[in-house]
C-alpha cells in the first residue's frame, strides 16, 4: 500500500480524537545542537479544516487494526473498514517532512491495540524515540497511552513525549462496561494514576520555564516526564449520561490526576454502527456548552451544581453563565465600580481579561457607560446586569436580551452552512 493511501486511512481514523493542542511544553529550540524544531509556551494552529478545528499536529494512528470491539469506535474489531499499519520509519519521515514545511508543531500518535497493550505501546515509543534521538526532533509529541500498558512503558513514553493522554471514553463505568466490554474503567484510571505519579516525581509541575532562549539547561532533579502533562477525552451523547454526570466526572478527573484538559467529543454515528448506539449525532452545541461550563468551573469559581438546569443538563439555548444569571436575578444588577472580582467574573459578557481591565481602570477613575466600548466589552450582553453612574438596567432588559439572542441564533443557524 502506498504511503498516501495509508495516510488517508490512518489520519481518517484519527479524526475522532478532538485534541490537537500543542501547548504547555517547556520552551526549547534547536539552534545550538543542529536538531530540528522548537516549542513555545502556547501552541500554534497551522491550519484549520472546514470543520473549524485547529490543525496543529500530525494526528495519525500507528494502525487501525484493533483487538478490541468497542461499540462506539470506528476501528472496532468487527468493523468492516479498510485497515492499514504504518512502519515506524514512515511516521518519522512524515513528521519530519511536514515539520520542515511548517505545517505542524509535531506529532500526535495514537493506535488501535495490536497483539497487546505492551506491544502497541512499545511501537509508539519507538516512533518517539527515533524522532528525539536519531533526528534531534525538538517539536511537540503527544502520545496516546494504552490502558494496561506496563508502568515501565508509561515512564519511557513520558521521557520522549510532551503530553500523554488516556481516554476515559465514557462518563460512567457502567457505560464503559456496556459499550466497551473489553475495557475497564479501573485500568484506564490506573494508567492515569501512573502518569500523574511519574509527573509528580519528575517535578515538571513546579519546574519553571527557562527565561532565555537557548540558555544552558539547569541541572535537573529527575528525568523529564511529559512536561505538558496529561489530558483525556470523553464521548458525549453515546450514552444517556447527563451534563451534570459528565461535569462531575471531569471535576473528579481534574483533581485526582491533575489533568491539563478534559476534551469532549460529541458522538457522531460511525459507518456501519452496531445496534445499541444512538442513530442521531449529539448536537455539537452540547459539546460546546460543556467546554464553556468546564471553563467556568476551572477559572471562574462556579460549582457544577450551580450551572446545570434542574434536569441536570446545560442550556443549549444560551451559554451557561448567561443561563445562571437569568436563573439568579437576585445577584444582579452588579455595580461595576464596587463589585468584587468574584462578582464581576459572574457577569455575563465579562471575561477574565475584561475584568482585569475594569479593575485597573476603576483605580484611576469611575467607570462610565462609554468606557465599556473603549475597553471592547460586549456591551449588549453586559448592560442588563450592571449598574454604572450613567446606566441602570430597566425591568425586562434581560428578557429582551434573551429574545434578541434567540433571533440571532436562528439567523446564524441558517448561515452556518453558507460557504462564503
Amino acid at each position: 500500500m502506498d504511503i498516501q493511501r495509508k495516510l488517508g486511512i490512518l489520519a481518517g481514523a484519527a479524526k475522532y480524537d478532538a485534541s490537537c493542542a500543542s501547548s504547555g511544553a517547556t520552551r526549547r529550540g534547536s539552534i545550538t545542537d543542529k536538531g530540528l524544531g522548537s516549542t513555545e509556551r502556547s501552541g500554534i494552529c497551522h491550519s484549520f479544516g472546514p470543520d473549524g478545528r485547529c490543525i496543529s499536529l500530525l494526528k495519525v494512528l500507528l494502525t487501525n487494526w484493533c483487538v478490541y470491539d468497542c461499540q462506539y469506535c470506528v476501528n472496532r474489531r468487527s468493523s468492516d473498514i479498510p485497515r492499514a499499519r504504518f512502519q515506524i520509519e514512515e511516521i518519522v519521515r512524515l513528521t519530519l517532512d511536514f515539520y520542515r514545511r511548517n505545517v505542524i508543531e509535531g506529532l500526535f500518535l495514537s493506535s488501535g491495540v495490536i497483539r497487546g497493550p505492551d506491544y502497541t505501546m512499545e511501537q509508539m515509543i519507538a516512533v518517539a524515540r527515533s524522532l528525539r534521538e536519531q533526528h534531534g526532533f525538538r517539536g511537540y509529541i503527544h502520545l496516546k497511552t494504552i490502558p494496561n500498558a506496563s508502568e515501565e512503558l508509561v515512564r519511557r513514553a513520558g521521557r520522549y513525549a510532551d503530553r500523554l493522554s488516556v481516554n476515559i471514553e465514557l462518563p460512567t463505568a457502567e457505560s464503559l462496561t456496556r459499550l466497551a466490554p473489553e475495557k475497564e474503567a479501573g485500568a484506564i484510571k490506573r494508567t492515569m494514576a501512573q502518569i500523574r505519579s511519574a509527573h509528580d516525581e519528575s517535578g515538571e509541575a513546579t519546574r519553571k520555564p527557562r527565561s532565555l532562549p537557548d540558555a544552558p539547561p539547569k541541572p535537573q532533579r529527575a528525568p523529564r516526564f511529559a512536561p505538558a502533562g496529561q489530558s483525556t477525552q470523553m464521548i458525549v451523547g453515546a450514552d444517556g449520561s447527563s451534563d451534570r454526570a459528565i461535569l462531575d466526572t471531569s471535576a473528579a478527573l481534574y483533581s485526582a490526576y491533575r489533568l491539563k484538559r478534559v476534551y469532549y467529543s460529541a458522538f457522531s454515528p460511525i459507518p456501519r454502527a452496531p445496534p445499541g448506539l444512538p442513530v442521531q449525532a449529539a448536537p455539537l452545541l452540547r459539546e460546546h456548552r460543556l467546554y464553556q461550563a468546564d471553563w467556568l468551573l476551572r477559572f471562574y469559581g462556579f460549582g457544577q451544581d450551580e450551572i446545570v438546569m434542574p434536569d441536570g443538563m446545560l442550556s443549549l439555548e444560551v451559554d451557561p453563565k448567561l443561563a445562571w444569571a437569568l436563573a439568579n436575578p437576585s445577584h444582579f444588577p452588579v455595580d461595576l465600580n464596587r463589585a468584587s472580582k468574584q462578582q464581576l467574573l459572574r457577569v455575563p459578557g465579562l471575561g477574565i481579561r475584561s475584568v482585569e481591565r475594569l479593575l485597573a481602570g476603576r483605580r484611576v477613575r469611575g467607570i462610565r457607560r462609554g468606557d465599556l466600548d473603549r475597553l471592547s466589552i460586549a456591551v449588549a450582553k453586559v448592560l442588563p446586569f450592571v449598574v454604572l453612574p450613567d446606566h441602570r438596567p430597566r425591568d425586562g432588559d434581560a428578557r429582551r436580551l434573551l429574545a434578541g439572542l434567540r433571533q440571532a441564533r436562528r439567523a446564524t443557524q441558517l448561515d452556518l452552512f453558507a460557504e462564503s
Partner: protein
Amino acid sequence: MNALTVTLLSETDWEGFSQAVRFLIGQGVPPNRVIWRLADPREIELFEATETAAARDLPAKAGLYLPASFVDVARLAFLHKARARFDVLYRTVWRIGENRQRWQNPLDPDRLQLEQMSRQVRREMHWMKAFVRFRRRVDAAGKQRYIAWFEPQHHIVEAVAPFFIRRFGAMRWVILTPRVSIAWDGGVLSVGAGAKKADAPPADAGEALWLAYYQSIFNPARLNVRAMKKGMPVRYWSNLPEAASIGLLARGYSEKN
C-alpha cells in the same frame, strides 16, 4: 516654532525613531510640530516647506526614562502598518513626560490605541509563524533550500525571524515578502529586498502528502466554515496550498446531505 520633519530609514527603523524621540523631548518640541516621514524619494516633495533632519543624525540626549510596560507596547505598535503610529507614539511619550500617571490609566485614548495596534501586530506575528509554508528546492549542487512566500499586513518580518531561526536553525531557508526578504544559511541571517510571488517555487512533489492529510483529517459530520474562517482568515488562503481544497470538501458534504 516651525515644524520639523524627521526622516526614518525604514518602516522598522526603531533605533532611528527612539533616537529622534530622545532629541525632540530634550529640545521640548511638542508633538504638533513634528512630521514623521520615511526615507522614500517619492515622498520628498510633500514636505519641502519644512526643516528636515535624518533621525539617526539627531544628537539624542541620554536619560529618557519610560515605563517598561509602555516600551513593550510601543515596540510592537511601531511595527503597525498605520502611518499614524509615529504620531501616536511620540504624542504618548510627550504626555508621559508631562505626567507619568497617564500611562497607568487603562482608559487613556492614546494608550488604548497603542494597545490595540500592538495586539494586531502580535496577532499578525502569530499568524506568520502559523501560515508561512516552505517548499523544498534542490539546487544544481544538490543542496536543499526551503523557500516561502508570505504577505503580512504589518511590518513584522524581521521581528519574527528569531522564531524561524530557533525552529529551523539547521535548515537553509528563505522567506520572501513584498517589503523585505530574510534568508538563513544555517549560521547568518541576511535581510534583503522585497520579492514577488513568482519568485517563490511552485509545489514540490512532497506537498501532495500534506494535502492528503488535510483532506483526511476533516470530519464532514462537523462542517463549520465560520469557525474555520475565524481561525484562518480568508486573506491568507491564496498562499496556503491546502486552502484550494476547502471548497471541494465543504461542497462534498453539502451535496451528501
